[in-house]
């Protein structure tokens, strides 16, 4: 349904755009309805950039992003507004997602203003109530409040409710629970699970492998802007082939081991090379399991 084909992104940096920084290199993947696809990788590996390109908040330098076959990198403003009926995002910092001087439910009101200007107030109010309920919020407890009067978990859920007002097909969730406490995390995560049941596709960006493992069918591991390993979650996490993936998995601290007993071994990895060159190609190593060759 949503498909990225050989997507590249380079930023111009330095004065007058004299230098180039390639943040995403030759990334291709697709998501199907009812599927959660996790994107994991170290800081700076390009996860957020991929998410923002899917949301068209930043342009792609090369490649195509298609929703149901239509390349949205080429549609104009009109097309983009229609695209946002189908694809929405939630970001990491709930407090930055709300304009602090307005009431929090303004994010819902803006959806009405842009997409449902002719819907009657009473009809809209019940629609809002329904979508708040579906994310586990009670309308009376959150409507009419300012962002600082609500908790991070409530704010993140309200953003999901906002996306649901639009009957979306794809949700881009960029580290949406990394700023929540452990118990709220699980609630929001389970909420994503139930959305998946309803046929929503979720692009779940995270650096927490256990979360990725918990929620997703498929996983992408990124490094230096390129995919190094991808496939079914069980395959990739159960039998990591790329040295980087192995390091990543080995570095997840276990609850019952201590550093003093068993320091985590780390394998030397090849350094960051020339990013403008195409990355190592992915080869199939198993059913639903691909790994980039190591040079």
């Amino acid at each position, binding site marked *: 349904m949503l498909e990225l084909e050989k997507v590249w992104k380079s930023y111009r940096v330095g004065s007058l755009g004299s230098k180039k920084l390639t943040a995403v290199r030759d990334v291709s993947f697709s998501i199907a309805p009812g599927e959660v696809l996790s994107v994991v990788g170290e800081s700076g590996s390009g996860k957020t950039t991929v998410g923002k390109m899917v*949301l068209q908040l930043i342009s792609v330098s090369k490649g195509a992003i298609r929703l149901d076959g239509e390349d949205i990198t080429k549609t104009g403003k009109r097309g983009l507004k229609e695209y946002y009926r189908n694809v929405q995002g939630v970001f990491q910092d709930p407090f*930055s997602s709300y304009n*602090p*001087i307005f009431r929090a439910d*303004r994010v819902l009101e803006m959806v009405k203003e842009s997409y449902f200007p002719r819907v009657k107030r009473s009809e809209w109010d019940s629609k809002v109530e329904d979508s708040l309920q579906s994310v586990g919020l009670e309308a009376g407890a959150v409507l009419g409040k300012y962002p600082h009067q609500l908790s991070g978990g409530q704010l993140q859920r309200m953003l999901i409710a906002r996306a649901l007002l639009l009957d979306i097909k794809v949700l881009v969730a960029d580290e949406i629970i990394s700023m929540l406490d452990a118990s709220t995390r699980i609630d929001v995560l389970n909420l994503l699970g139930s959305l998946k049941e309803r046929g929503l596709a979720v692009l779940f960006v995270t650096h927490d492998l256990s979360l990725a493992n918990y929620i997703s069918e498929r996983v992408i591991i990124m490094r230096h802007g390129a995919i190094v390993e991808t496939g079914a979650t069980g395959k990739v996490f159960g039998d990591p082939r790329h040295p980087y993936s192995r390091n990543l998995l080995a570095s997840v601290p276990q609850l019952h081991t201590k550093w003093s007993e068993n320091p985590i071994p780390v394998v030397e990895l090849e350094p960051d090379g020339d990013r403008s060159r195409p990355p190592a190609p992915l080869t199939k190593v198993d059913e639903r399991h691909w790994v980039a060759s190591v040079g």
Partner: protein
Amino acid sequence: MTTDVMLTADTVGQRRENLYFALRNPKVLIGLTIVVGLALLGVIGPFFLSATPNEYIGPKSEAPSADHWLGTTYFGQDVFTQFVHGLRSSYLVGSLGGLIAFVIGMSVGFTAGYRGGLVDEFLNMLTNVVLVLPALAVLIVISSYLEVRGVISQAVIIGLFSWPWVARAVRAQTFTLRNRDYVDLAKLTGKRPGQIIMREIMPNMASYLLMSVILLFGGAILFAAMLDFIGMGPSNSVSLGSMMQQAMAWSSLHLGLWWWFVPPGAAITLIVGGLYITNVGLDEVFNPKLREK
């Protein structure tokens, strides 16, 4: 339409709170009283007085009396009439010059800050050029070329030269605000850049913008007075600065005609000082950390 009302109503609570503190802040009260009081005198006064303030109507160099409240000039013009007309033109220059500078400064600042990239580099260069131009020298050259120097042309020239610092500050603030996630969220709702600037970014800078307007207003009045004083003022009307210039030119100081130069001088000082006090007070209002217990 109704949704618009709803959205603006959201901020009403906070605006009201700010208004409450503003009207209880003694600095704001004193400053506003001075500025508004003199403005009323300048706006309403001329309707009750002669429309030709430069007319020779009475005895020369007479001290203040019941007939001539602020006395007469060396040539026998009524100082109070001149003063009231001068106030009016000073406020006109201040508002028009300040407004022009504010509009240019905001447009440049918001565009540069929001668009970034090459647009920003170009606008930034333009801003810096205007900033380092010796404005006074340029103004003198331009002013001396104009056939009839009026209050309006003076205001336009002042406006065209005093926007850079607003542009710089607006640009800097826009730069940080445009990276907030709520701006991205507004984009995801299909909002256009203009709407995002007006409705997401600008409200967060409202206090700052209000204070800039006040400073620009005061700056324009002071700048105009300076031009007038060096003889570059309006050639077809009276202003506070040109009154002082005339007074000095005819050595009112030596002749002891204090009523000729004290009122305009005091008025300029009071207006600019009043605006400054208002600003300091507003700063306390918007910045609760500065509020006294």
